[in-house]
């Protein structure tokens, strides 16, 4: 494939430019989100709240074969996808979630991700009739929950 004269930028330029975007996103978005999530999980750990959440949500999360603590990933997803990724990484490194668990929640993080922001940035901008807002949030969350089952089945086959 590749370099044709019409292309203003060649592949190397494009790649380097993309890497630079990656550095910016990594440093400016990913890292602060990961730090916040690790600090939050540490705080939950120190106060004993994480254990508490784990116990309370264990029956619910068991529906997807996940530990109760995984609920923190889903709740943070509503605020920010990056935060949820950080939370998942934090629980993974604390040994609370396994690599399989993280794989199962991965699509859910995005399907119900950043909904709080996107109410404004997507539905607000598109001027969707606000009578649909509640249903649409519900559908996005449902999407996420169903996707976790699909992932659970796929992961079981791997």
């Amino acid at each position, binding site marked *: *494939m*590749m370099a*044709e004269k*019409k*292309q203003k930028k060649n*592949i190397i330029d*494009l*790649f*380097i*430019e*993309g*890497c630079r*975007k*990656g*550095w910016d996103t990594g*440093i400016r*978005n*990913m890292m602060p989100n*990961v*730090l916040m*999530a*690790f*600090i939050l999980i540490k705080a939950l*750990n120190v106060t004993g709240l994480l254990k508490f959440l784990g116990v309370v949500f264990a029956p619910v999360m068991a529906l997807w074969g996940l530990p109760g603590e995984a609920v923190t990933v889903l709740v943070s997803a509503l605020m920010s996808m*990056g935060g949820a*990724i*950080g939370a998942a*990484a*934090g629980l*993974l*490194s604390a040994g609370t979630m396994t*690599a399989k668990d*993280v*794989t199962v929640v*991965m699509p859910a993080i*995005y*399907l*119900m*991700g*950043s*909904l709080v*922001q*996107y109410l404004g*940035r*997507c*539905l*607000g*901008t*598109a001027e969707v*009739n606000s009578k649909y807002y509640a*249903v*649409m949030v519900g*559908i*996005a969350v449902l999407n*996420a929950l169903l*996707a976790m089952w*699909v*992932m659970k089945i*796929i992961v079981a086959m*791997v």
Partner: protein
Amino acid sequence: MDENKPVPQTEEEDEVRWYSYVALLFAIVFFSGVLATSKEWYSVFDFTVLNGTFGKIAAANGKALTFRGAGGNGCQDGFAFALSLLPAVIFALGVVNVVEGLGGLKAAQKLLSPLLRPLLGIPGACGLGMITSYQSTDAGAGMIKSMYESGIINDDEKTIFAMYQFSGDGTITNFFSSGAALFSILVTPIIVPFAVIMVFKFVGANLIRMYIKFLQKKNGTKEAA
């Protein structure tokens, strides 16, 4: 995590070229992981193979650790962890930028457009807005608004299209930036969770489509365009 790329506005002058399809196919193979376990030379066309691994440091107990070490926690461990994720994020967005620059997303748009009416009940013209929303939430939503204002889609179609974008918005940008952080620990190929997201976006849009139909039946109204 938030994509804040400027709008890749409207139809670009040039049409989709042959290498755009090659770029799209390449991206699918590259992130699919199908070649990851191959021992042949063509494993070079795999993201995880080229992403590689960090060197190991011998620990006192005879174990080998990466620079992140073991047993850390809190902010400092988060920092070391985030550092260890950076290469994947940089690399993934580099590749995505190449594919985008070669017109790979435009090729996807061309392939998708004829499917939109049967799959979502919205006009094929929404293809551009759909592809745009994979890259930028704000730009995608802006295009819904302008398409509605110029009469290309009616109110119901607007709602369906917005639902499609709303769940898992900014898909490519978000998945390959924040998501790249976890690529190395996924127990499935990278493309699997991505494909699941893509499929459920269609599921969600069809749920609201059914809901709208249900409301219309209930009210006995026939909403015209």
